[in-house]
């Protein structure tokens, strides 16, 4: 469906963002009082996907960054040895985490231009739909990164899965959402600070440590096939649930903070 949306026009990125916000603003007037929630969510999500499809800013920088991490880490240990399987879990997730921060930092940046975020704020569009749209967009970007990078990891580090491989996608989805939901929220926080690019990892990493530990351990257990990853998967699921709730509860407060 993204291919379809690409064909429908050749507007430059900045006007697209503004137009989307204008539509958002007009929507309540044309629809009757309040715009139906999924529509706002869907419109924002599609706008972000279209912008990304045309510019490919986030994907390009993330993939290149993750590639650099893979190459740099290969110097610190023997990448083809038996130890590689043990370390790979941590390595993959650290690479994804660093790369994800690159994309997360850009989440709100384009909404600042032309005061799009202010337009959102005065519109009656529910704040949480905006948040969910941004989080889902980031989730898709990071998922694409993972799909592209995982084969490279397998090739470069000579990996072979000994445990139940069907668990890996489950861990990836839960882990990515854990990073992305908090990351999107903290990007909105760091938007209001000096040197915002520095701020995001500083507040995101400490909070994400339990989730990161869960992803790394679960991935390691599946790769080595040593024991059951059940505890870590449940931990990740509960972490996702709790922090999604906290994000949705507090997002409107943070968006309206002046």
């Amino acid at each position, binding site marked *: 469906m993204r291919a379809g949306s690409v064909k429908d026009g050749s507007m430059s990125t900045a006007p697209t963002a503004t137009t989307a916000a204008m539509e958002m603003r007009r929507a309540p007037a044309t629809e009757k009082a309040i715009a139906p929630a999924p529509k706002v969510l869907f419109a924002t999500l599609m706008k972000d996907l279209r912008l990304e499809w045309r510019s490919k800013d986030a994907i390009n920088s993330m993939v290149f960054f993750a590639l650099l991490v893979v190459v740099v880490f290969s110097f610190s240990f023997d990448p083809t040895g038996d130890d590689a399987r043990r370390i790979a879990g941590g390595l993959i997730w650290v690479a994804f985490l660093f790369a994800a921060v690159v994309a997360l930092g850009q989440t709100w940046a384009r909404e600042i231009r032309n005061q799009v975020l202010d337009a959102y704020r005065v519109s009656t569009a529910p704040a949480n739909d905006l948040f969910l749209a941004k989080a889902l967009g980031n989730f898709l970007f990071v998922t694409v990164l993972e799909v592209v990078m995982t084969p490279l990891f397998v090739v470069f580090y000579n990996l072979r899965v000994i445990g139940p491989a069907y668990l890996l996608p489950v861990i990836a989805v839960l882990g990515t959402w854990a990073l992305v939901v*908090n990351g999107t*929220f903290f990007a909105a*926080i*760091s938007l*209001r*600070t*000096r*040197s915002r690019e*520095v*701020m995001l990892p*500083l*507040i995101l*990493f*400490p*909070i994400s*440590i*339990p*989730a990161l*530990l*869960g992803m790394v*351990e679960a991935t390691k257990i599946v790769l080595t096939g040593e024991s059951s990853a059940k*505890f870590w998967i449940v*931990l990740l699921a*509960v*972490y996702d649930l*709790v*922090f999604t709730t*906290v994000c949705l509860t*507090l997002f409107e*407060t*943070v968006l309206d*903070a*002046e």
Partner: protein
Amino acid sequence: MKTPVLIAIAVVVALLAFGLYQGLVVAPTEQTMGDVQRIFYYHVPSAWTCFILFFINFVASIWYLFTRTSKSDAIAVTTAEVGVVFWSVVIITGPLWARPVWGIWWTWDARLTSTLVLGLIYVSYLILRRFSTGGQTPVLAAALAVFGFADVPFVYLSIWYFRTQHPQPVIGGGGSLHPAMWHALLYNWLAFSAFAALLCWFRYQLERKQRDVEETLALESLLEGSPR
């Protein structure tokens, strides 16, 4: 300085001195570890005090989100700052004890790691406060405090599952502590809590005064019609 404040300072100094005496003289020397075990009387009370302060920070942040009073935000910033100071005491005295007893400065054991991670969350809270601009600092900081507090169970559970090497907690762990050691520990905890309360009081007053000054300056520049 006003008399009640001077009395409070005198009481805290007396409590700290008494705690020191209890810890260094009255409490018996531990059989296997020797005198180095006495650092325990500072390490553990600091840890308890720091956890209490972090909890107060969470309560004050929630209070701020509901009421938006300047007072609650001042309490939040105060307890976070003093809490991080006591956390630093915990993190520094721990390795000083661990080196002679375990033979290593640091180990990635559950209790050490989770305390370290917990402290990092509050350091990031203070960094956010320092870096954020304008009037929205309290809201952003309060939101982060809620995240930090929601993270605590995950930090403990995940790292505890990872592995553990720390001596089992004295409270509720069925540890056999000599009564005199108990006394020294509790006296020191009392002294440290009083010390923390005094520090918080000073920091809180400073924060309130600073806000008053900022408000006055803003008002003056408005009246004069020129930036200060």
